[in-house]
């Protein structure tokens, strides 16, 4: 049995089932989502059956790879949470080196020069060329 295919099938069943349930009170507008969700449920059942008889092979990540990917996801989450209060510039100036160091890069000059040049370029590109202000942060918003 393939655990991955089973999980994919169960998720498909859950999402399809949820949409069928939620579309019961929408009237005519619920017809299309119901049909699509029905097809999704049928395909998921097919995948579930297939998972038992003919599992598909996907290269698994090893423990270190999982840790590294998880670390990058968590750092991204923290970065996104920090953008609004700290502002785009400050949050990015912290995030880029933090990620590089966490994932094992130790070339300080490369990291800091790249960070400063890149953040300044992105900020100027949005601010000056596209006229789209990026978040300034709670502190700068006071001024």
């Amino acid at each position, binding site marked *: 049995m393939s655990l*991955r*295919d089973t*999980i*994919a*099938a169960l*998720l*498909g069943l859950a*999402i399809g089932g949820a*949409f069928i349930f939620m*579309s019961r009170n*929408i*009237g*005519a*507008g*619920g017809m*299309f*989502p119901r049909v*699509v*969700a029905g*097809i*999704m449920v049928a*395909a*998921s059942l*097919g*995948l579930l059956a*297939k998972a038992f008889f003919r599992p*598909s092979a*996907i290269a698994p*990540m090893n423990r270190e*790879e999982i840790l*590294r*990917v998880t670390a*990058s*996801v968590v750092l*991204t989450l923290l*970065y*996104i949470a920090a*953008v609004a209060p700290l502002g*785009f510039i400050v949050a990015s100036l912290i*995030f*880029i080196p933090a*990620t*590089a160091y966490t*994932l*094992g*890069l130790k*070339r300080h000059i*490369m*990291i800091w020069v*790249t960070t400063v040049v*890149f953040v300044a370029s*992105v900020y100027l*590109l*949005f601010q000056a060329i*596209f*006229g*789209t*202000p*990026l*978040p300034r942060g709670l502190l700068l918003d006071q001024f």
Partner: protein
Amino acid sequence: MIENIFNSLILILQWESVAAMVIGTIIGMIMGALPGVSGTLAVALAIPFTYELSPLTALGLLAGIHNGTSQGGAIPAVLLRIPGTPGAICTTWDGYPLAQQGHAGAAIQLSAISSAVGGMIGALSLVLLAPPLASVALAFGPAEIFWVNVFGLTAIAAMLGDDILKGIIAACFGLLLGTIGLDESTGMERFTFDRIELLNGLSMLVVMVGLFSFPPSWEMAQKTVGGAVDTFKLVMTKGVWKVQQVWRAWWKSSIIGIIIGILPGSSISGFIAYAEIKRTAREPEKFGKGSVEGLACAECVNNADNAASMIPALTLGVPGGTIAALMLGALMIQGFQPGPQLFRESPQIVYGYAWQMFITSAMLVVLGGVVASRLFAHLLRLPNVLLLPLIIVMTVAGSFAAQNSMWDVYIAFGFGLIGLGMDRLGLPIAPVIIGMVLGGKAEFSLRVALLLTQGDPMPLFTRPICMVMIALTLLMLSYPLIRRGVAQLRAWFT
């Protein structure tokens, strides 16, 4: 048509459009040269920047990136045997051996010129083949349009993944995401959970950016630091290849690229063209050991199918691949509805885009030569773990800029997690976005068709074009069985 072709040429030669094409091609080449950054990721990252641009400037930028990444992918393929983009896999087979023989400069020059030739022929096919197809498609009624969309979605689901059931699940997920928001016909809210932000539905741009930008960046963390440092010296040796040696490979692979590129969901043109050119080559034994014909074919076909994949996208509204789906998304963000009407209502957009694909292909000869490659070779020294946060920062800035809202950033992050999960579960991501692109149109066509037949579904199955599309859809659904059968037959005979 001729008048529209010339008028659109004048429009795209305005300085904003020319600047966008040059910048797009350079950016595309740089990003394509970075291992792990695919054309899809490059286009997805660029779409938020096109929000504020005029339509032809935006399309010029994206056309440049599309063609540029295809050629940029050849640089690490030749220098390091690392395909910068999936399309450059065949390039490694002959490009790297040529580099090992001391001809890295000539190999990169040949790949740039071959990409340019393929791209220009592909762009011409867009001008020549798309209008007649659009004229035919204009005769389609709502029922036919519904089945064309079903066929497009089935083709993508069947051919873009290893498992058609997973493709169907992903496509249905995309279709369901497309139903979130106010129902256009009844005005009723659907799946909004009383969130005002969801009334207009999920922003396609944000979903695209989230699904295509976050997962590949996070997956870059899998590899330890390292980095591609040992690049060959780009010495330009003359006489390594001649036009007389490669022109057959150019036109044959261009035609193969165009034919296969038109088919929705096909991503195998490179392999088919390589096999065909090798089969008919004068010296097939050189293939895989540094054949100039092999390298010319691999790069030519890559760029030939770039424009060809836009033919079904622009004429029928059915994207031929992931990047074509992103391009359709970009067109819709600009307020255009892809499909046969686009040729009648905004011909300058269609022909202007074809010109831009042609011109950005031609630019590869100038921008993709050895001098540029020397510059890009330095980029190969940028470690993945530093590239990762840079892409994340771009993604966050782009998602925010769409509507100046952190809500979009949170949604993009959420879809990034969904994309990562799908990737690990072996669910293809492209059908999700294609489902979102096609869903609204498919639903609208179905409802209008049923309205016209006063609720009777039978005409949906009995009209001639509908029957053809249903037959093609069933053929696509049985594609995995056919593929398995062919493989078994081949194994049996060998």
